[in-house]
């Protein structure tokens, strides 16, 4: 009795299916297009200025052509290293507290609220705060201050994604651990955290990639430096800072270097993220996904 109804229904269903699929594909293209566009433009503008010198030499004085961004690349790596050392442990620790130990407490609500507010603080304000809190008392700009500024900016993202990912671990897994006499803290560290680790790592990478391109928080903290330095206590160059300075300069040569710097910054971020993904998808953490 339904057989006469069925074909019509199925045609309508096919049409709907087709429409929804097309919309999804369209949306995907719209999302990917700007990305490809930006990257393509960077390659077009910057690739020609890339040479071995770019990675091996520091900036040349005004007027001389050539030179590179070796000091800025090293500086960015150092500042981001400090930032990760601060932002990742504190962020994950906060996430563990929110998801496992502080559930339903007032302190947890306060921490969650603080993290969300911190997430909304404009990066320039973060730079100024660190300027007041670290640079002024120390009486000098430093790589360390820059790292702290970026590190604090990483905390909310890492914290909230860690919380979300931990909450997604089924309760049955926690019960399984408690049920064989594993103490709660041990179960959190060795089981829940490990089960949630793929998502937590993604959160850390997101936070890292976000702050890697920040300029404003570094303006009053790391300051920038035209010379090679790896001293945490001295002003240091960083790719976004260098790009900023070069892009605002009146020289064509520097403009080209700025484009090349932007291209390198993006490539380095992609490389760093892929490297972490590669390392964590094998070895100790294998099977975690």
């Amino acid at each position, binding site marked *: 009795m339904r057989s006469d109804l069925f074909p019509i229904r199925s045609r309508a269903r096919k049409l709907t299916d087709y429409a929804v699929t097309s919309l999804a594909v369209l949306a995907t293209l719209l999302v990917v297009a700007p990305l490809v566009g930006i990257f393509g433009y960077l390659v077009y503008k910057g690739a020609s200025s890339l040479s071995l010198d770019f990675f091996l030499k520091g900036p040349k004085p005004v007027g001389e052509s050539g030179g590179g961004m070796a000091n800025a690349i090293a500086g960015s790596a150092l500042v981001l290293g400090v930032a990760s050392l601060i932002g990742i442990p504190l962020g994950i620790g906060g996430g563990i507290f929110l998801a496992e130990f502080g559930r339903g407490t007032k302190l947890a609500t306060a921490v969650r609220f603080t993290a969300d507010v911190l997430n909304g603080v404009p990066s320039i304000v973060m730079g100024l705060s660190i300027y007041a809190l670290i640079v002024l008392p120390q009486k000098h700009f430093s790589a360390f201050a820059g790292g702290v500024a970026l590190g604090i900016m990483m905390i909310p993202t890492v914290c909230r994604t860690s919380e979300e990912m931990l909450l997604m671990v089924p309760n049955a897994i926690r019960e399984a651990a408690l049920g*064989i*006499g594993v103490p709660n803290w041990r179960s959190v560290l060795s089981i829940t955290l490990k089960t949630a680790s793929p998502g937590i790592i993604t959160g850390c990478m997101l936070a890292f990639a976000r702050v890697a391109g920040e300029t404003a928080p570094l303006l009053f903290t790391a300051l920038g430096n035209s010379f090679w330095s790896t001293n945490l206590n001295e002003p240091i160059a960083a790719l976004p800072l260098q790009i900023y300075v070069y892009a605002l300069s009146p020289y064509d040569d520097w403009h080209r270097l700025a484009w090349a710097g932007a291209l390198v910054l993006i490539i380095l971020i992609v490389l760093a993220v892929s490297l972490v993904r590669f390392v964590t998808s094998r070895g100790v953490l294998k*099977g975690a996904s």
Partner: protein
Amino acid sequence: MGVGIEVQNLNAWYGSNHTLQDICLNISANQATALIGPSGCGKSTFVRCINRMHETNPIARVTGTVRIGDVDIYKDAKPVEIRRRVGMVFQRPNPFPTMSIYDNVAAGLKLNGYSNRRALDEIVEKSLRNSALWDEVKDDLRKKSGASLSGGQQQRLCIARALAVDPEVLLMDEPASALDPVSTSKIEDLIFQLKAQYTIVIVTHNMQQAARVAEQTGFFLNGRMVEFDTTHKIFTNPSDKRTEDYITGRFG
């Protein structure tokens, strides 16, 4: 050796839901005790009170006394110690998804700081043999994750994991509900063997299973224990009308 369990005036709540009401019973050492009753009557809640898992739920509350051997578990001991002595196989299989089969079984020992490789290997093999899973997984102990097994295999893995910590009491919440007849009879054989060393409490919806493995049987209804007696008595000549109605299939 197994130890006896003495439960007095046990009451348990989930929020305002009074899930268990005034439960009193004595479970004998080195015997299997079956708990039967319709869905939602509180069997799982009851076994979770015996190893203090019930209190891990933030909305849960429990009162009354449970003695295991000569320890009053709610007064004289920490939850972690109790759970090491009272193993549990949960109603739904819950292997650790990030761990290999081997690590799943060894988890209870490893996470408590036990690290003798040789001894661990032996314990893992023995536990997997006891839970009738060894032959199916022996070739990829370290290669396959616990989550890649079938539902019934996962349940047997969880049994092995509970056995590996060598408890005195083993609580099994419907351990055979996801198993085929062959594995089920293997598990039942296992229960027979294990009685020598452990005290076993098994929740089951399968009357034949209760009749086959258990010396004693308790019938739960709406959070109360209606009748507790030898399995033979419960299934042939129950003293309560409701027990009779249930086992003859008139309700539930």
